[in-house]
């Protein structure tokens, strides 16, 4: 019986550490903020459809991190126009904001953090075949997401991370 318990606990430990390894890998990829953002369409009521290209050695990890990357891009980098679809400038023009408010943004981008409120997968949740690309030894995955830019802007203004237009310059 003791032997069985030992085997069971060891298996649980291995499964847990494998899952946390994958999580760490995902977080590491996100911390580096390696992604590309492109506008797809202008959505309804202040929303934007963007495609975020994320990189990872594991395809599934890249998909998981896409939402964080997209929100990060909208706040700090902006999206350039494409064809007839207008672009979206970054919500902040302070290049140091992320470092200055590190604690806030660490919480904001934590797993299941507040960022989740402003992003959802567009379409039926599937990745298009042309958006799943193997480049060298890693994957470049494009996920189309719908970003509630207005909601995000209002929230960051309310928390004082960015200034509202009405507050003056």
């Amino acid at each position, binding site marked *: 019986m003791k032997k069985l318990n030992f085997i069971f606990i060891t298996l649980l430990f291995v499964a847990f550490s494998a899952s946390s390894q994958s999580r760490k890998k995902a977080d590491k990829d996100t911390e580096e903020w390696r992604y590309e953002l492109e506008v797809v369409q202008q959505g309804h009521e202040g929303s934007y459809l963007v495609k975020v290209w994320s990189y990872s050695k594991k395809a599934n990890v890249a998909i998981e991190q896409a939402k964080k990357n997209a929100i990060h891009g909208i706040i700090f980098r902006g999206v350039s126009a494409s064809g007839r679809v207008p672009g979206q400038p970054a919500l902040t023009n302070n290049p140091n904001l992320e470092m200055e408010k590190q604690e806030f943004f660490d919480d904001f981008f934590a797993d299941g953090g507040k960022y989740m409120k402003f992003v959802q997968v567009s379409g039926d949740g*599937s990745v298009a075949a042309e958006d799943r690309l193997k480049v060298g030894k890693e994957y470049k995955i494009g996920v189309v997401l*719908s970003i509630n830019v207005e909601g995000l802007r209002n929230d960051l203004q309310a928390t004082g991370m960015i200034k509202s237009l009405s507050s003056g310059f």
Partner: protein
Amino acid sequence: MKHSSKQINKIIFTSLVIINLFYSVTFSQVQTKFFRPSITTTFIKPASNEIAKVYEGFATLPMEGRFDNRSVNSNMLNITIPPRPEMPKMENPLGAKRAIEDYKRSLKDWDNAVSKSISGSISPIGKEVFGNMFSRTSDGNMSWDKLMEAANYSATDNQALSAKESKNSANEMEAIANELVKRSYYVVYNIKSIKTYEQVYNDIDASLKALSIKTKKPFKPTPRTQEGWQIDFNYFIYKLVWDDATVNDFGDKAWLDASTTDPAERAKKITAFENYEFKFELALSGGSTANASQSNNPEVYKNSKLFKIERKSMDQLLTELPSSMQDVMVFKGGREIEDFKMRAPIFQEKPITVKLGTKEGLYYDERFFVYEMEQDKEGKTVKKRRGVLRTSKIADNSMIATGTSPASKFRQQGGKKLYQGTLVELYEDYGYGFSIGYGLLDNFIGGATVSAEVRIPRLFKGSGKLNKYLRGLYLNVNASYNPLMRGKEITEDDGYKLNFQCISYGGSLSRETYFTRKGNLYLMPEIGGGLFTTSTEDYTGSNDEEVTLAASGIYVNGSLGLGYHFTPMISFFVKGGFCMKLGDPTWKVEDDEIDFSNVKYSKDFKTIKGISIPVFAGLRFRF
């Protein structure tokens, strides 16, 4: 702000040019999306009444689900196709290479001449199809409405949701409608010859006679067991040219809708449409034969009490030919023409589901290849094969997609681990194969074995419930030859060592079953039966002369095989099971039966009766 009709036309056609440009940039390297192609079936004017009857059969023939069938009234091309060059007879082997080159050249010239002739006369048909597609009315007005309906039906969940979420949802659907126009295909059939089976047998006999004279062997006529028809036909698949230049040109000159009210302008546009020369490019051409036959033995139709078989008239058999002709065209087109290949990304990994279904005409066991997109060193996107899938549960998605369409289930049958988003693309197989191997532990059904197989679901191509149970089912015929029965004694100590040869023929039913996620390994239970024979010509008869001694019997067998896919086409297998010989074998010296029932067989002949446990190993090839 009100737009004039010219401005509206300009907006529609300019947006189409932009959409064209976007799609051509996006999909210039590898096609990853499927838009339902449309097919219009046409024929070269028939040379005989029989050929005309075959063509009539197409009117009621349904098209495979993944295509839109666009029928037209004027589907006969009044042209004469010159006879196809025949392969020259090669009397002198030294001149063979040159003769083949000449033949290839003449075949290419013929192809070009035929193609030119057809594309010159297909334009009026293109006009009728185009008119139907854009709901052209008697007063010349056209609209996108019908095509937009088709676009809505063709749209995937993602496209439908994307349109819903977009501020300019009409643009999305316009883009799809435009892709549908670009995928307008025109098939032209030409039946080169039609023969009754009597003529077919006469031709075979004439060739055999000529061969027998050359080889100085007696001529043996072919048994005439069938009646029916055999045709030799060509098909030419053309694609409508709908590029930026054509879109602009057509929009400027020939597009007319209700917003154009000026009578002079309308008359000009109507005339322009009537005289418009639609351009086509040849996508594929090929040729094949098709047969529709049945037994000519009246007893077959009288004696079948359990399954009543109706004897068809020769006219009825003619109507079966269009289906074979269309199958060949769709199969070959599906392999060669990118637009014909249905494709979609993997939607879910466990179990593997893909958003394709009855709308696309899926059938059980239909084969798909799975590709991963890879960026090569030059930055080009190329597709690399990662696995093979077959349909295992078909979803009914014959509706306009809203975002919640059901997905069909697929079973992986070899390859690497597959992920969400990898491209699933149709690559239909012929459904037949063969295997070669060697069997041990039973001298009578063992030895070198060959087997031919046919995948049963491929014959029916069905999506109904019954077909679900036929998944992975194969019908096999096999033969074995054992060369190792030389210098063997029939009984333990009779002292007569003879050279025997053992041959067996059989049939079986087997089923592929997959049990691992990647499906590289498969199990294959099999059940069957057949006839075995063993004979020697060295037996010394009562007159001290060497005569033929032979034994034969019937067996039933069952086995369980384990296979491993090297490639989608080749797999290695081992199988073991039982073989039960039914009763004692029948021994004959010359034609006289002899009684060996009380003989105690030697170890080499031990498996001639009773139960044995043979094992086999070999390679299996599937096409």
